[in-house]
């Protein structure tokens, strides 16, 4: 019996359990007129029964499915003891691969050794038995749960509270998933980064001025210094983010002021969705716009005024990244400005302030912490942005503050290090994790500061 069929069976049982629980609660108080004597509504008794029927069975199902393969494989291999006795780990894993491929019908059994065929046949029959056993077990557990609750249903059973308690656990579990994932990501980066720092001293990484991550695979290979000084990447990232913020901060802020304070409802209803379209453009589209349109334009403009602009320049990437961030800045600033209470504006108007004076000296002043927080969030987005810089900023790790030159960023290098063939014992690949760790820490700190500032501001007016 297929596991998905088992799940369907369980679902059917859960539906039955709901009806049974509901019917039982009504029966206990002698029909629909007695429902007022029940502690909870009949539906709650149904839900409670359904949960007792479904949840334990589901847990058993999950554990079973996780453990099944290892156990069956163990038994299948023990059917051919002589063939597996002297295998090295690598040969053993090859054998297991063959075994699974035969079982799943991906290769012709005739092509492998006799012993593997025997193990595969054994595996297959064991699996069928296991699935059947699973189906029976699930059905028994589900029915036991159903009967257990059905017997416990009384007029004073607090089904609603028990059900709500379970819902609370479910909510907790969902939030736990997000937290656990974050922890998992951090740990995976940290462990690989630690391995990198065992090969390359952390001071060389943080303060080295030269980045050239090519490692010699053969001793006589040329042009592979393997220098891991990340300073050029940090400066490149900073340069591009700075250009982006120089574009995005004033334009985003001023457009937010226009939208929040000056625009009438009609203008607002047109401009705001258009700005949000800008936010919806995929970054890869921005990327090729920057690389194929803006880059060449900047280059030819540079030529006409006698500047030497590289076709992949920090300027092109930064400008377009700035455009990408405009809606982000503008909608955050808009929220902050709109959240300033009308009473403050009235106070300024009543003193004879014009609209412009009111905005500059009262509204913006009041919204400032929120706006600063929004800008910090925008910076952390700029630092983490990848696609635009991959396409438009280039790969050359130049240590420069000249926006007309090609630079490279932390994110670009992570991409190039991890694209293609990798060997996870080489500093070249591991360097990506060290870069990722630094990037993560920087954006984390920025986000924490930004959220702190924003929240502090929010408390003031709500």
């Amino acid at each position, binding site marked *: 019996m297929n596991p998905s069929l088992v799940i369907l069976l369980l679902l059917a049982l859960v539906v039955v359990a709901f009806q049974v629980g509901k019917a039982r609660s009504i029966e206990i108080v002698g029909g629909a007129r007695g429902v007022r004597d029940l502690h909870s509504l009949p539906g709650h008794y149904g839900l409670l029964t359904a949960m007792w029927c479904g949840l334990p069975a589901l847990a058993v199902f999950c554990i079973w499915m996780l453990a099944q393969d290892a156990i069956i494989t163990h038994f299948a291999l023990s059917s051919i003891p002589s063939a597996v006795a002297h295998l090295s780990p690598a040969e053993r894993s090859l054998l297991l691969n063959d075994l699974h491929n035969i079982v799943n019908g991906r290769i012709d059994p005739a092509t492998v050794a006799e012993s593997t065929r025997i193990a595969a046949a054994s595996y297959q029959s064991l699996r069928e038995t296991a699935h059947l056993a699973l189906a029976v077990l699930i059905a028994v557990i589900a029915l036991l749960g159903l009967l257990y609750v059905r017997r416990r249903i009384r007029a004073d059973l607090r089904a609603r509270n028990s059900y709500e308690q379970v819902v609370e656990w479910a909510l907790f579990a969902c939030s736990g998933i997000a937290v656990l994932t974050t922890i998992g990501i951090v740990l995976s980066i940290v462990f690989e980064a630690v391995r990198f720092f065992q090969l390359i001293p952390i001071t060389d990484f943080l303060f080295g001025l030269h980045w050239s991550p090519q490692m010699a695979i053969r001793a006589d290979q040329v042009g592979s210094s393997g220098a891991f000084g990340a300073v050029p990447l940090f400066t490149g990232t900073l340069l591009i983010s700075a250009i982006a913020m120089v574009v995005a901060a004033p334009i985003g802020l001023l457009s937010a002021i226009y939208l929040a304070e000056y625009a009438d409802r009609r203008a607002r209803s047109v401009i705001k969705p258009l700005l949000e379209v800008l936010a919806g453009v995929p970054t890869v589209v921005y990327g090729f716009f920057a690389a194929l349109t803006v880059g060449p334009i900047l280059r030819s403009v540079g030529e006409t005024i006698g500047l030497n602009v590289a076709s992949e320049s920090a300027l092109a990437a930064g400008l377009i990244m700035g455009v990408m961030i405009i809606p982000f800045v503008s909608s955050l600033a808009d929220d902050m400005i709109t959240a300033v*209470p009308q*009473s*403050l*504006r*009235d*106070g*300024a*108007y*009543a*003193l*004879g*302030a*014009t609209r412009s*004076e009111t905005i500059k*000296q*009262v509204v913006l*002043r*009041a919204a*400032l912490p929120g706006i600063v927080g929004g800008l910090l969030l925008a910076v952390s987005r700029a630092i983490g942005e990848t696609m635009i810089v991959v396409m438009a900023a280039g790969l050359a790790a130049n240590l420069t503050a000249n926006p007309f030159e090609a630079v490279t960023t932390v994110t670009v290098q992570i991409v190039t290090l991890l694209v293609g063939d990798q060997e996870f014992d080489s500093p070249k690949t591991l360097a990506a994790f060290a870069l990722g760790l630094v990037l993560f820490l920087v954006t984390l700190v920025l986000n924490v500061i930004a959220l702190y500032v924003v929240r502090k501001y929010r408390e*003031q007016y709500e």
Partner: protein
Amino acid sequence: MNDSIPQAGPETVGNVRVPEPVFSCTDVNVHYGDKHAIKNVNIDIARQEVLAMIGPSGCGKSTFLRCLNRMNDTIPSARVTGRIALDGNDIHDKRQDVVQLRARVGMVFQKPNPFPKSIYENVAYGPRIHGLAADRAELDDIVGSSLRRAGLWDEVKDRLNQPGTSLSGGQQQRLCIARTIAVNPEVILMDEPCSALDPIATAKIEDLIDELRESYAICIVTHSMQQAARVSQRTAYFHLGDLVEVGETNKIFTNPRAKLTEDYITGRFG
């Protein structure tokens, strides 16, 4: 949009005119969209006098108050008609700059609304934008004297650089009054200035109003009839957009002439 013919309300009981008024309002009507909020109101506001405006919620007293410094301009759906003359000049005249008008007619709001600035800067804001002080010393003088007149100086003189929002509710409201008188207006409008304050803070503000009356005309909207009786010389009773009765405060409260006024002040509704 709506019927532009003003509905003739009942004639106001009592004498609405005074000699040499600061404000003289004639046939004032206010519409919010389709709602006729103020109906044909005629009233004068005298110098060196506190005029209290009372009436049940939604009767239009705050709306009328906001006409006097054209704060209703900030509400897009509001439409004000009729003649409101400040020292004989119509405030709706095209030559009248609303910014100058508001410098002459200050306003204190229901909820204290200090700016997110220091105590000093809160008071200095008005003089700064109107260029009232030639130098820092003069500005210091204005701030100091405004805070003194608002009865706040002794409580804040050592912490003028702290944010205005760090003060208590009553102090904030007196800061807002100081901010208003720093511009040296002719009239101060107060929209339920004590409704968010405790009784002690309220008493302080009421004393302050009594002192300020010597220099300014004050127009106060209040929900508290006791407060109107305590602070005002004249009282106007509004009901559903109509100005029902105007008269000397002690007469209105002891011997109201209109039936509606009597019902309200004897607590039959409100």
